[in-house]
């Protein structure tokens, strides 16, 4: 496991900003802790809708193929 430092929004490194994360994921632009946390929440929320959207597209494509086959 890699110990990494997240820079706070003001860009200064501080002891409280040292966190643990299972990846070496911090880019050179500084991702921001709060942004990463909300991103995890948003991704979980929209991931479900995205799955529904994909399935709906597949169902539509299947029905369309069926209609074309009948014609």
């Amino acid at each position, binding site marked *: 496991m890699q110990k990494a430092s997240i820079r706070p929004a003001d860009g200064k490194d501080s002891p409280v900003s040292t*966190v643990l994360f299972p990846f070496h994921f911090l880019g050179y632009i500084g*991702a*921001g*802790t709060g*942004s*990463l946390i909300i*991103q995890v929440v*948003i991704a979980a929320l929209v991931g*479900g809708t995205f*799955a529904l959207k994909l399935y709906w597209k597949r169902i539509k494509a299947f029905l369309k193929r069926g209609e074309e086959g009948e014609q």
Partner: protein
Amino acid sequence: MSSSTGLVSGSFRDPSGFLFRQGGILYRQVNLAYREHYEALMGSGLYEGLAGAGLLVPHEETDVEGPRPQDSLVVIRPEPVPFVSYPYEWCFSQLKSAALATLEIQRRALSFGMSLKDASAYNIQFVRGKPVMIDTLSFEKYEEGRPWIAYSQFCRHFLAPLMLMSCRDIRLGQLMRVHIDGIPLDLTASVLPFRTRFRFPALIHIHLHARSEKRYADRQVDMERLRRISLHSFMGLVDNLQSAVRKLKWRPAGTEWAEYYDDTNYSDAAFGHKKRIVADFLERLRPENVWDIGSNTGIFSRMAALPGVPTVSLDVDPACVERNYLECAKDGSVDVLPLLVDLFNPSPAIGWELNERLSILERGPADTVLALALLHHLLISNNLPLGRISGFFSRMCKSLIIEFVPKGDSQVQRMLASREDVFADYDRDNFEKEFGLRFEILDRVDIESSDRALYLMRKR
């Protein structure tokens, strides 16, 4: 702008490589530290896919030695961009297109096992009318579970200005000029109308995002306790951002495009004659490139660009630039680049050492400047003496096609109606005298059925 070592001044943040100029050609050194990611980009098929789709600038690998050979993996030569522009110079639809291009690149990158490590609006340039990613080193190998590092940057560079422009006021796009790394989300959240809290994309990507950034700004957080983001959810996030951006619209309040622009100062005959004179002047000059300043909706820019001449079309009115961009996209005028620039306060040099983003003058000079129906606006609206105007133009171009609008013109009279006439020296003789100091007047043609005249000048 390049330093004495050839390094491009705005290219210093990313340790993966940097831009430099040698013999007038722009190169990018790819550093050894970026090897794994560069090889993945080139070997996975992602580069071919993106470059083929016109989403990523194509490049060639060269044998050129970069300024720091000890760090160098390879030196590449990207295809040149005809004119570098910045997000605060783009109209609403240009910024929207750039945002959608960035997301499409990210979507494709994910399907090739890669991800964008930054999502800066400055990484996008308009080439032949289309938004193109110019930073070849923005890609990194994707690690399953890992969040999108550039999510916050994408929101600050694209979503925030687009939402402010769409939901509050188009002029707020200019905040990008003040905030070089994108508009802070807390500022965006405080300026957006209250109703945006009830719109899902604005609620999550701006309001809650801003609140989360504030809450965790200086706190210790055990990120292990957070769930990983699956690839599927990551794709969902990108898809959600794409849909949020697509839904954002802007139109000038209370108007229809068709009626927004109505320059009625010319009769059809006079306007037709003006077009013929400009076409003749351009034919005589055969310029390498043109800046049409005060271009309005870009009628003359399109004329200048017709033979394939790169033409930058500058105007101060966001609605005119928007219409210009949409019309160019519709009629395939790919050599016109409409930009939002206020000549009274043109884009300055900004960023670190005032060298990161260049002023509009540093990106010139243009071969030819068109300044049509503009002189009276500069003179009367901004109280600019003729000498100052000719001085500015002489720094901007080698040749000039300029329209003289006399004081008796009905539009000038309208402008003078509500103010004191302090422009005693505003006449044709003084105009020729002042401009003649810096330019050689090659030709002058009076426009039929009008008091106006067009001049063809070359810088002395």
